[in-house]
């Protein structure tokens, strides 16, 4: 941890023993992290082959995502950015549904309307992601205000990156959260880059976590490569939220191993040596080492985990690729709850041009 990180840690609330990561679930966490890594690699190559249009990898952020997902409860609301594939998986979204979205087929829960990675899964309270940076932050606060009004015993968590701390919604969201003392967890995955802009040039504060002070609530830095530390930090924040003590800003310090997205070439702006150095603290390797040390895992079992993950990914992909495109008429649905006469007219025009059946 950096010195600044230590300083920011002093903000942290007292340790809660009930917040410790359940040892029995470490292997489970490991499996999810491996699955996410395998997915990442597969999707990067799928994009190169033109089989999916885009992908934003999460390699290096697996512990942060899985740790946070484990710490939240099923009733909690998740406001993701566009890298939170692992969060969705941990909360129970079938891998197949993820691939349906990535290929944008007729089975996609979002009807093939969004670019890959922009997921929405209402059954796990995983709110529809959008591309504009930061917008989910105020929305999470609004949902938290609704929680307060309904007196529900849950919390919301908003995921965002280091770059998003510069957004309008970061400022508005954290300010409203402070004023209304909402049960919100602001989970910033500081992966050190906003595309080509390094963290140091995003803002001049020593840590991102300390920005919370400007809004009157605590900010905490956590080592995002340590799944147990992430879990504990999110858990404690959740306890504070449910106790009525208001929001917490968490800065999970990680490193983005891969490109920003499949459209990006990181060699243009960073040295490979920096990436190699960061990979020394690969969250998967770190967790594996602990598990091996504690004799929960050996190499054979580990290989099996990776193989199973690959098989699972291959199967989900194959299924998703067999599906047809959504129907032409679907373009006109969900603009409003019901089609307007104007949209009906346009739908009929499109059906005339492109075929497809009127629903």
């Amino acid at each position: 941890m950096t010195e600044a990180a230590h300083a920011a840690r002093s903000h942290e609330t007292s340790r809660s023993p009930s917040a410790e990561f359940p040892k029995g679930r470490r292997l489970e966490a490991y499996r999810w992290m491996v699955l996410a890594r395998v997915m990442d690699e597969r999707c990067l190559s799928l994009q190169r082959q033109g089989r999916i249009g885009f992908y934003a990898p999460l390699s290096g952020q697996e512990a942060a995502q899985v740790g946070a997902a484990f710490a939240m409860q099923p009733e909690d609301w998740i406001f993701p950015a566009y890298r939170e594939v692992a969060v969705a998986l941990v909360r129970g979204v079938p891998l197949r549904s993820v691939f349906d979205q990535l290929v944008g087929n007729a089975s996609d829960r979002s009807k093939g309307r969004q670019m890959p990675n922009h997921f929405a899964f209402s059954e796990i309270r995983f709110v529809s992601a959008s591309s504009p940076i930061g917008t989910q932050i105020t929305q999470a606060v609004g949902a938290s205000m609704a929680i307060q009004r309904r007196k529900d015993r849950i919390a919301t968590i908003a995921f965002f990156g280091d770059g998003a701390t510069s957004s309008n919604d970061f400022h508005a969201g954290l300010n409203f959260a402070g004023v209304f003392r909402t049960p919100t967890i602001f989970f910033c995955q500081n992966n050190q880059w906003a595309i080509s802009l390094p963290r140091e040039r995003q803002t001049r504060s020593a840590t991102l976590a300390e920005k919370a002070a400007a809004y009157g609530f605590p900010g905490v830095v956590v080592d995002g490569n340590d799944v147990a530390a992430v879990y504990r930090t999110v858990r404690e924040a959740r306890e504070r939220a449910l106790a009525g003590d208001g929001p917490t800003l968490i800065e999970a310090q990680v490193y983005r191993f891969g490109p920003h997205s499949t459209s990006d070439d990181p060699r243009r702006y960073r040295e490979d040596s920096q990436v190699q150095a960061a990979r020394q603290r690969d969250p998967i390797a770190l967790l594996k080492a602990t598990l091996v040390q504690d004799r929960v895992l050996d190499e054979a079992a580990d290989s099996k985990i990776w193989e199973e993950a690959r098989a699972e990914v291959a199967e989900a992909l194959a299924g998703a690729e067999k599906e047809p495109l959504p129907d032409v008429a679907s373009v006109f649905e969900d603009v409003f709850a019901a089609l307007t006469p104007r949209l009906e007219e346009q739908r009929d025009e499109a059906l005339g041009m492109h075929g497809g059946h009127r629903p």
Partner: protein
Amino acid sequence: MTELTLVQAVNRGLQEAMRQDPDVLILGEDVGVNGGVFRATEGLQKEFGPGRVIDTPLSETGIVGTAIGMALYGLKPVAEIQFLDFIYPAFDQIVSELAKFRYRSGGQFPCHVVVRAPYGGGIKGGLYHSQSTEAYFAHTAGLKVAIPSTPADAKGLLLTAVHDEDPVIFLEPKRIYRAVTGEVPDGDHRVPFGKARLVREGSDVSIFAYGAMVPTATDAAATLALEGISAEIIDLRTLVPLDERAVIASVEKTGRAVIVHEAARFCGFGGELAAILAEKAFYSLKAPIARVTGYDTPFPYSLEHVYLPNTDRVAQAARTTVRAG
């Protein structure tokens, strides 16, 4: 029935909606203790408490962003933007998020927020307390846009808006907030979206208007009547959904169209109306379509009377149109 001003009718509409449904709540700047700078929310915090009439910090981004979060959760927030001129800090939330939530999630996350804002000129508000930018919202797929021009419609359209399933931009013509009073039904009065109001029947020319331009157009029709020109006045009430049928039917009858709005002309809502007519009522048209609008300049202060359409300009355009063919 109660005799109310337009802003009082807005107030009663909000009160009625909040009494009907505990999920309805209001948020915005100065809406609580102060009752809103135009008093639209007067008395509501007293009746419903600060948990349902929420004074927010000075951030439209925050107001609309949090309203969206509330709506996703199942509440029915009504966000007040103090003047339409101040909605732009929230524009990203409105056009990128609110308008697209249902669509982008394949219907999984409908997002129903009513965003209320006083708009329009005629109150000596200068550049930033006068603008009419309804076209921005009407052009944004996924938003409904309602604009009342009478106290009864203010309440009736607002109640419809609050109970609608889609996001609604609700624009209130502040110039006529207190200009006239009108009979407003008590209780659950609703005016459906997508149904224009026939203000006055006529046979020579159709004048289309909304908001504060409806009384202006109506006054012009009275003048024209003295000259033997029979003008039909149609109040659009909702720009989205638009009552295209009524618009087209009127021009099929009169053969002539004058479109009136306060907003700048270029790419304004009048362009859409003219385009619809030039496509779908083409063979009925006897004369060029006229637009009487604000000019293509920012909104001036000392000379706002030059900028704003008035009775003379509307009547003159109608005359020219009738004489043309």
